[in-house]
């Protein structure tokens, strides 16, 4: 009895040692194959976006919980942005085409960092010009502040721009949220469509 317990214990120890060395190898390798590996940064467990609360075109307040069951890709931008925002939306439209049939399990959302000029309807019309299922959200300055803080997103009026013709500097990254509403991946918006599609596929 004692002996077998000891054998059991030493067996457990061996397993634990094997596990530990396995984990060491895993961490030395940088990334293993067992867990989903992302092209972007793994932000699992950060709860980014947990306090998102923005308005859609019908006036409803939207949180991440509203999109459960879909993988969500969120980008912060604004409609008076002539280059980086339409480029990112074009890239995300390409992602949808790459995903083919799986595209219906994906929701792309652009949140405006320019609530003074962008109503929810303006942002929504804007993003739908890129892909019909994209959603645009905006809201009050307060809603944006709270939401941006929750995503750790930076935005500010660009220096040297004045009047109604100002530009907005902003974090240009894509947040991928899994089907349970948890933030999982953070990608630079300059990443090619195939990398973004790859990371979304890991969560489908």
């Amino acid at each position, binding site marked *: 009895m004692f002996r077998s317990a000891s054998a059991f214990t030493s067996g457990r120890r061996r397993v634990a040692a094997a596990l530990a060395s396995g984990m060491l190898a895993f961490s030395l390798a940088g990334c293993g194959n067992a867990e989903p590996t992302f092209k972007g940064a793994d932000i699992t467990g950060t709860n980014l976006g947990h306090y998102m609360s923005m308005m859609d075109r019908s006036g409803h307040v939207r949180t991440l919980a509203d999109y459960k069951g879909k993988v969500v890709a969120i980008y912060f931008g604004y*409609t*008076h*942005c*002539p*280059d*980086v925002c*339409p*480029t990112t*939306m*074009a*890239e995300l*439209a*390409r992602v949808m085409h790459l995903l083919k049939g799986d595209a219906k399990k994906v929701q792309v959302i652009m949140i405006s960092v320019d609530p003074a000029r962008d109503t929810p309807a*303006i942002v929504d*019309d*804007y993003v739908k*010009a*890129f*892909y019909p299922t994209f959603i645009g959200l905006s809201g009050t300055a307060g809603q944006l502040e709270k939401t941006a803080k929750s995503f750790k997103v*930076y935005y500010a009026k*660009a220096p*040297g721009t004045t009047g109604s*013709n100002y*530009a907005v*500097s*902003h*974090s*240009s*990254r894509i947040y991928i949220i899994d089907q349970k509403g948890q933030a999982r991946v953070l990608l*630079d*918006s*300059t990443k090619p469509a195939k990398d973004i599609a790859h990371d979304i596929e890991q969560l489908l």
Partner: protein
Amino acid sequence: MKNLTRTFFFAVLLCSPAAVLAAPSAAVTVSDCWIRALPENLPSGGYFKMANAGDRSVDLVGVETSAFGMAMLHETRNKGNVSTMVMVKKVTVPAHGTLRFAPGNYHVMLEKPKKTVKPGMTIPVTFVFSNGEKPTVECKVKKPGAMSY
């Protein structure tokens, strides 16, 4: 000899009408110009490729178009993860080199279109260079989702 020269010129005229239209010493050429159509007459980006066949670098110092109220040279700069749009006074095309205005980088910011800009249209744009050359190029208007010419 005179006849031969004349024949030669005639041949050039026949073969390359574009070369005749351009200034004989044209160093810079602009090609692959396109403009992204955006809804609601929002400011849009213009993209193109410049080639400089000359021995000296040439600066693009501006663009002119009657189709928009404003056209400015801009650059999207990424610092860390923050994107900022910066106005630039000139962009240098190196001697015997090319330079591309492309999404996410250099672009012409086109604001206040006189008429709604729609995919399929072409818009003439004049490029102003520091050496005095001012080629005019027809730019294709493409869908919002376009990424290249």
